[in-house]
């Protein structure tokens, strides 16, 4: 169904609350990314930021009733995993590609 006006009030209010919660979660992990006392804390906060943005994109896909956002969510999840692996390798070995 292409037009998006079919969702009712229950789903819309749940989506509003969910957007609020996920946005606060993004801000909290951004705080840990900036504040984090050690390097692994920042790495963990970046990974959490990626996963939270995947959640936000899925919510946006439900709100706009569009299938377009799953490819973007999949790409963000993929880049998040690759970035975390590269950061962990850099912190462990001092180099990414040996």
């Amino acid at each position, binding site marked *: *169904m292409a037009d998006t006006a*079919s*969702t*009712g009030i*229950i*789903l819309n*209010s*749940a*989506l509003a*609350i*969910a*957007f609020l*919660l*996920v946005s*606060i*979660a*993004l801000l*909290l*992990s951004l*705080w*840990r990314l900036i504040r984090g006392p*050690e*390097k*692994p*804390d920042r*790495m*963990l*906060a970046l*990974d*959490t930021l990626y*996963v*939270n943005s*995947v*959640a936000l994109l*899925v*919510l946006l*896909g*439900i709100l706009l*009733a569009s*299938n377009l956002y*799953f490819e973007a*969510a*999949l790409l963000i*999840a*993929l880049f998040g*995993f690759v970035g*975390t*692996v590269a*950061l*962990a*390798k850099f*912190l*462990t070995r001092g180099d990414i590609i040996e």
Partner: protein
Amino acid sequence: MSILNILMEILIAVLILIGAGFTFLGSVGLVRLRDFYERLHTPTKATTLGVGSLLIASAVFFSWQEPGWSFHEVLVAVFLFITAPVSAHLMAKAALHLREHGETSLPTETTLAKHDGEAAISLGAEQARQNGLSARAQGEGAIPEARR
């Protein structure tokens, strides 16, 4: 609007609220817990459960709204469920490596005071042992210097 539509809306709304709540709790744990190894626990489990619940909600929504079943979300869910433990393991390994090589600090006195008594005593003994080891290592390092 028929009864079925209202029931489907309530089901999707409950799934969305569960998912968003778990995502939020994961980030709250990331901010509030004391140690890196405690902080590693919350996001890697809670956000995976949260995003998984959101993806189930999305699959139900698109299977309801559009003709046919919707399986796009299963791809994202499978990828996240495979990679989340792997990345958590790699992060724990990196943190342990940095700690063994002295680049991150051991638990300090303020974090030790927050633990309850027995754990504080054992951790204090561990730290004292580490201090003794490092002092002995410095002593052994100093001897050849004196010989030269």
